[in-house]
């Protein structure tokens, strides 16, 4: 206990300070009621997101793609702060593995650009701003590759290498880049899963497994639903393209993949998720409901015994959901898409107060 306290006291204080700087329900209410993107940004610049918004305002590029790029920098800043203070290598490995999802997104964009013959300047606005701390892939050299094949060869020595090599033959056969993108995501989640199991301290591992498994389950369920009902792929493809980790078994995922429609899929979900998702009619709704469930579940990490890695992981995932919600809301403003706030932001962000334990609930608006 004393060791854990020594290990985590500074990091915990830091994480909880960052956590306390989340947007409040009143912020969400005002952001939703803003008239247009400039007003949205003006208000956001009075919140803890001010430094990143002011950078965006000074860049004078306020389209939604630029907004995403700038606002995600706030999340990466939290990643960097946590990485700087993390006490041991196995914990660091997990946080880095979580950050690697963004590196993977960038990698997919680069490969897509190579596939479609686009130049770096044409897609650079879509790339997440990652530095050496968060990404070790040599992107500059990657851009110099002439073709997808060369790029895969270039990546041979990275974690993505073996899987990409296998996926490349599918790209050749199918004439589309989808298999490569799936391969990258699969590797990424495999890394997270092995990083979770690589955490040595039992208490850390228990707390992290709870948070990360819940997160992976949500991602997997949405992913399977999208593959089945949006892309129209078969159950076996949905299962093979699903991600490692999480508490759902392969059999459970297969059952979900075999569901005839979304309602049938929801009926097959574990109880807690099913209750949260009941009544949703489309995949965005399902995702929102599951994110809401995930956020409630992750709140447990902040309760009780405080000295464990779950706090940091939960904060990072929660922050990511907050940032993604902000992006969705901004995109809706930018495209004048009429949608209620509840359809764009998980309910819990709109309802709960800033208390770490969820007590002292403040009703939105």
């Amino acid at each position, binding site marked *: 206990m004393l060791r854990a306290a020594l290990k985590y006291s500074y990091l915990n204080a830091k994480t909880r300070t960052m956590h306390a700087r989340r947007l409040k329900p009143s912020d969400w209410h005002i952001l939703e009621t803003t008239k247009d993107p400039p007003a949205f940004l003006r208000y956001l610049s009075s919140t803890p997101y001010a430094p990143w918004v002011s950078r965006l305002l000074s860049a004078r590029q306020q389209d939604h793609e630029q907004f995403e790029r700038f606002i995600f920098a706030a999340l990466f800043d939290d990643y960097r702060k946590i990485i700087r203070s993390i006490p041991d290598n196995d914990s660091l490995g997990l946080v880095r593995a979580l950050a690697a999802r963004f590196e993977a997104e960038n990698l997919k964009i680069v490969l897509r650009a190579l596939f479609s013959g686009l130049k770096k300047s044409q897609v650079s606005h879509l790339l997440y701003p990652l530095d050496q701390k968060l990404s070790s892939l040599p992107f500059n050299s990657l851009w110099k590759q002439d073709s997808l094949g060369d790029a895969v060869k270039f990546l041979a020595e990275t974690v993505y290498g*073996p*899987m990409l090599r*296998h*996926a490349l*033959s*599918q790209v050749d*056969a*199918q004439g589309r880049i989808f*298999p490569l993108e*799936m*391969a990258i995501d699969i590797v990424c989640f*495999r890394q997270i899963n092995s990083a979770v199991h690589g955490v040595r301290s039992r208490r850390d591992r228990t707390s992290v497994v709870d948070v990360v498994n819940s997160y992976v389950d949500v991602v997997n369920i949405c992913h399977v639903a999208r593959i089945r009902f949006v892309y129209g*792929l*078969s*159950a*076996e*493809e949905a*299962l*093979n*393209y*699903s991600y*490692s980790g999480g508490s759902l078994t*392969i*059999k459970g995922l*297969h059952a979900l993949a*075999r569901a005839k429609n979304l309602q049938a899929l929801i009926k097959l979900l574990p109880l807690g998720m099913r209750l949260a998702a009941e009544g949703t009619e489309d995949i965005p709704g399902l995702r929102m409901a599951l994110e809401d469930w995930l956020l409630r579940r992750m709140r447990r990490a902040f309760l009780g015994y405080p000295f464990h890695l779950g706090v940091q992981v939960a904060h990072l995932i929660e922050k990511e959901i907050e940032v993604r919600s902000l992006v969705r809301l901004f995109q809706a403003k930018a495209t004048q898409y009429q949608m209620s706030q509840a359809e764009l932001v998980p309910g819990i962000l709109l309802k709960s107060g800033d208390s770490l334990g969820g007590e002292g609930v403040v009703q939105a608006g």
Partner: protein
Amino acid sequence: MSRVMGILGDFKLLHLINISETRLGKLGYSAGVPSDLLDRYDNVLKSIASLVRELEIKGPVPALEKAPIPDKDIFYMEETLADMENQVSGCLVRGREAAKELVKTEELISRLSMLGPADIDFERLSRLRFVYCTFGVLPADNMPRLEESLSDIHHSLITISRNRDRFVLAAFCLNEDREVLERALKSAFFKEIEIPSGLKGTVSEVIEGLKEQLPALERKAHQAREEKEAFRERFQKALLLMREKAFMARLLLEAQSKFGKIDHTYLVTGWLPIEIFPRLKDAIMKATRGRAIVESVDPEDVREVREGIVKIPILFNNPLLIRPFEKLTSLYGTPSYREVEPTVFLALSFVLLFGMMFGDVGHGLVLFIAGLYVFRRLYRYMDYGIILMECGVSSMVFGVLYGSIFGVEDIIPAIWLHPMKDINRFMMFSVYIGVGMISLGFILNIINMLRTRNFQEFLSAGGVVGALLYWLLAGLGIRYVMAGPPAPVEIMAAKVISAVLLLVMIVERPVRAILRRRRERGKSKSTRAEQGIASMVIESIIEALDSIIGFLANTVSFVRVAAFALTHAALFAGVFAIADMVAQGSGRGAGYWLTLVAGNIVIILLEGMVVSIQIIRLEYYEFFSKFFRGGGRPFQPLVKQEEVR
């Protein structure tokens, strides 16, 4: 015109003036580039490159004896190339096909070897009527999901072999479930092992059969290779020479964009050394049978040059031993046309200082040998080879003067002194060298002032007055060291003279400003804020004091020459001490000598580098800064040999 271009190419030493920058060019009378001919040369170069690549031609680049005549030589080149391509193409196609077939067979063997452990009979497989089967490689981590995804159909996944991260699988299912199996395999990133249809026998039998085919295929490939080698021998020289010619012809054609043209008359203007002008004129007149006008114009007669709009390019023209140091001069800047070209001073002082700081017969010999090797073997770095050899000789000369061979000081007697034993004398000598170099800097600066007619700086700290003050102070110092303290009269005289010189240095700028303002008064109303006289005086006082301190610092800076010579000797002492410690443990065996050799290598590499850096610093900061203004334009000959390559 093409013959004239050939002559210009032969002469090489012509720095073309771009006509488009002149009045004539701005009026549209530019010759332009003959794009059709350029395209033809591009095609020729592409064909040559392809032949050179295909025939794997490598070797020294031949020197061109005569520049090409672009619009005539193209016909010969095109014809010769077409002929060569005709002769070579059959052999190349045969070689490619043989290599392709060989690779294909080897790949098939390697693919089939993966199925080796199962030793499948392909004939029996082909007889399966209701069962679909495929072979391939699967990432090991994907196996559980693949198994589960196929749980709804009758199937069989047979592992033929596995290693750390992959399975070699045989996947079977009923024909009616083939689509499901294929979808599942595809999504599990299953990489199919392609097996050509019509194979008969077991895997091992098929591999055996393929292996038997290999020698024949190899023979075929070998035959094609030999044929290719014969062609290489035959065409190597001609192709490389043609490539050089085509490159040069292309350069000459591109240079045409700088020519002027009025109807059928071309105008070529440029800079060239005056000595070669008569020869160039003769050659052109002969080639054009007198239908050309070749004139030389003195730069002073060109208005743009007088006004400084056009800069005269500088052609370094030093003897072979000095030429490598031009690189060091250029690194600092390109001297302007009227400035003294300082490479010769830099080269001499560099070699002298290097020898002083790195004086050792053995080390000098090592440097000389290294330089000789670079000079003879590494053509591109020939200049550095020359510098190394010169520094080596200087090092050996000073080694003899110091009596040092690989740090051993008792083999030959010191003709002059031992740096470690005669420190004060050596330091004084370094300072004298410094005084000499700084004085040379002042003299060169005065010459530059005269040549550029920059008389207004004459009385400044960098001009005659500064030089006189420096020499006065230096003279006093040398007098003190050599003959003891100066007499009171001498001190009084020095005080008076230095006070006068200082006063001149302080007031020359304000006085010039007052005179200038007086001259300009009434002529035009200046809108710019002028500096006050008082502040100018204060600035001049500070500048004068700064100059005096600078003189002192610059001179003292040369003490480093002695300091590094001492370091050189001290490092030897260190190496010998370490070697002795090794000898105490194990006697004067291999360890002792290895330590000495390693120590010497470290000294040569490390100290050689440090000494070079220090000399460059002295040259640039203490010497060049006194007179070198730069801002000149390097001479760019019409065709550089490197460009052709």
